[in-house]
């Protein structure tokens, strides 16, 4: 059988360093126009660009970073302007996802159901996708640079479905998955219980992929009235997607579940955790708020909400949220600790130090964490900091 030649048993582990070297070779070798796609988080993208700049001094490199939606969707035009100003060999392009988030939002406002907004319903084409697909020959004919699109996973899905001709022209795609176990295992155990978490975590990548499909078959066969069962299967499926590093899919499961049963508090919480991990903090906060509606004294939700607020730089609101967590669970060490972070970032060192002592009293592990935590960079300049944590 021919398929045997394409089927091998041992799993190919993705090695980030090998992946990076492959990207580097592609960049070094490409002469003139080329299209490369790198699937990674925003932070990871920054690191990759930094590293390529150091490793490839022979090539001129520039970055085009979109921080919001491209209003007219004309990516081609923006790239053209950038290259006209600075004709480089390699242009990194970041932030296409903003144009798509905006697109999904618009559809939501227009009253599309969640199913329709998801990339695989394909009722419509976002403008930037259209632009890429349509201008394909223009990219080839007007640019002599290698364009490297750094995008999160869900954008690749859009490209495959809505700009297939453009995506088809790539010379390579590279994947830098999120660091595994990005979320604290405790949170997962909290959300799913030890038994369920362990059972799914022990599976191999292949087994989890198969299980996702099995669950889907069950979901398709369930009667619409079997709401409770449906919601439970979706919850499990979203854990599997999370463990596969497919966060967007995991969020989709939550959304579908909440469409069926909006009062499911734990799903709102879990969805908030996922959205936070995706860096979609505002949506995460909205999700935590819904969880709070159903159970106002859930300290974990208040704590998670604080983290998303802090990530947006809304420190005072974050502190208020941590305070709520502490109100309902006075020995919530992380809430104390994260509160210290906020005060430190606001450069209110007196409060920081006072609270840090309190946190360390609750758990000595915060002493070690504080020594290396980015958030304390400024605080560590203060001599009193070292008195508290000790050398």
């Amino acid at each position, binding site marked *: *059988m*021919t*398929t045997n*030649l*394409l*089927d*091998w048993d041992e799993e*190919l582990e993705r090695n980030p360093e*090998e992946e990076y070297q*492959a*990207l580097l*070779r*592609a960049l070094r*070798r*490409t*002469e*003139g*126009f080329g299209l490369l796609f790198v699937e990674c988080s925003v932070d990871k993208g920054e690191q990759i660009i930094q590293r390529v700049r150091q490793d490839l001094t022979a090539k001129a490199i520039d970055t085009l970073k979109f921080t919001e939606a491209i209003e007219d969707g004309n990516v081609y035009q923006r790239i053209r302007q950038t290259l006209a100003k600075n004709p480089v060999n390699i242009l990194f392009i970041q932030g296409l996802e903003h144009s798509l988030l905006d697109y999904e939002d618009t559809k939501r406002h227009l009253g599309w159901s969640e199913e329709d907004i998801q990339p*695989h319903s*394909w*009722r*419509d*084409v976002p403008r930037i996708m*259209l632009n890429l*697909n*349509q*201008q*394909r*020959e*223009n990219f*080839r*004919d007007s640019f002599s640079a290698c364009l490297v699109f750094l995008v999160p996973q869900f954008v*690749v*899905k859009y490209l*495959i*479905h*809505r700009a*297939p*001709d453009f995506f*088809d*022209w*790539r*010379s*390579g*795609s*590279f*994947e830098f998955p999120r660091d595994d176990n990005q979320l604290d295992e405790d949170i997962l155990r909290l959300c799913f219980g030890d038994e369920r978490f362990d059972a799914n975590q022990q599976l191999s*990548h*292949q*087994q989890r*992929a*198969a299980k*996702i*499909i*099995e669950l*889907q*078959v069950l979901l*398709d066969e369930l009667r619409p009235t079997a709401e409770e069962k449906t919601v439970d299967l979706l919850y499990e499926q979203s854990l599997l997607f999370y463990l596969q590093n497919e966060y967007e899919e995991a969020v989709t499961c939550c959304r579908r579940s909440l469409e069926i049963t909006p009062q499911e508090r734990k799903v709102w919480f879990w969805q908030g955790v996922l959205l936070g991990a995706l860096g979609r903090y505002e949506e995460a906060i909205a999700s935590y708020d819904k969880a709070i509606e159903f159970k106002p004294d859930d300290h974990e939700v208040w704590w998670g909400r604080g983290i998303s607020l802090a990530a947006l730089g809304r420190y005072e609101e974050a502190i208020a949220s941590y305070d709520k967590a502490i109100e309902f669970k006075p020995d919530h060490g992380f809430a104390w600790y994260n509160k210290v972070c906020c005060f430190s970032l606001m450069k209110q060192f007196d409060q920081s130090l006072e609270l840090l002592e309190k946190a360390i009293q609750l758990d000595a592990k915060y002493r070690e964490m504080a020594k290396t935590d980015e958030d304390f960079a400024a605080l560590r300049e203060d001599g009193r900091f070292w008195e508290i944590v000790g050398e």
Partner: protein
Amino acid sequence: MVDALTQIYNAINPFEPLEPDNPLYVDCNAERGDTDIILGLGREIVRSDRFTCQLFAGHRGAGKSTELLRLRKYLEENGCFVVYFAAVGEEDGDIDPQDVEYGDILLACARHLLEKLTEADPQPLVNWFRDRAIALQEVMQTEIKVDSVDVGIAKWFAQVTATIRAVPSQRRKIRELVYPHTITLVNALNEFIADAQHKLPSGKSKLVVIADNLDRIVPIVDDQGRSNHDEIYLDRSEQLRGLDCHLIYTVPISLVYSSRANDLKDRYGNPELLPMIMVQTPDGQSHAPGIHKMRQVVMKRVEPYWPNASLETDIFESADLVEMLCLASGGHVRELMLLLKEAINRVSAFPITAKALRRAIAETRDTYRRTVNRDQWAVLAKVARVRNIDNDEPHRDLLFRRCILEYRYYDDNDALQCWYDVHPLLKSTAEFKAADATYKP
């Protein structure tokens, strides 16, 4: 000094359709079920006394444009004047592939005929346009001055198509103005064409319009399950077929599997279809002649920079890997190039190792895996078993995205056999295996 590997890497280029007579071209027709568009589409035009309107379909990246350029050359050598244009994509493409109506295609034809047939008298089209000018002027907010004898009329058509394509807010208004008058537009075009027929360069007796890239019109299905493809090619076929010249439109492969496939056949005859190169037989055995073609495609790109290189030892570590690459491509030329590039990315020097090729295959497989919606795995499991497809939306969608591939061959009785298979890369995914295991006939 650029090394051979870098040169070969850059020669494996998925961007450019090959011009006729390009030495890189490999004639694969025998392994595409003897699909020869020169014989199919070309001869029909050269022999026919009546005007023809033919469709040309195929998978994205299968080599349609390359084949059309060959066809164009053949037609030009056989007494035809060819107006070839890429309706979507080029610097001044005419059509927005997301939002297309048949009238857009008609206007694009008008524009390109006017641009290429400079000897003919444009008066009928000038008159037609002048009747719309005042209203258009208001919508497009530009001054439109059409003189009674305007040699620059083509540029006004170009401006209208450009506005329809690029300015969605004006698109609807322009269409409302123009499209009630498509019948008179077709009449005006035919008057213009009739005059052009007399003025064709010497040696040319037939006028052929080839509209390429229309296959890039993204399929959109409305709530009633009607697709824009059906609307354009079936409901409005009168107008699309109405020009008094020979017409060839490229269409996406999925259209051929429209639920209204019979209507399509009635209107256009059997569409010419460019299938995959057959690298495996319907019973799943490796098919040596097809593999050989794929090897040649690779060799042609390698030879200029590394004469006499051996694929089995110099370029790849072993013969198995060459076969693995060809099979993994599913007989699709652009896929072959992509896999090869991905593999070269993963080695610092030739030969390509088993690990590098597996990595490349895994990467590409992952992309395909994610294009399949969760509810489509069951469909794929069925296709892999029965080697046939239904004319319904899930199958069309999977064809459009190359998750299902079409193959053709002539059997021992000289009967053309069409068969279908799931993309070979998808078959080894856990999802496919899970669906296959639960498959119920």
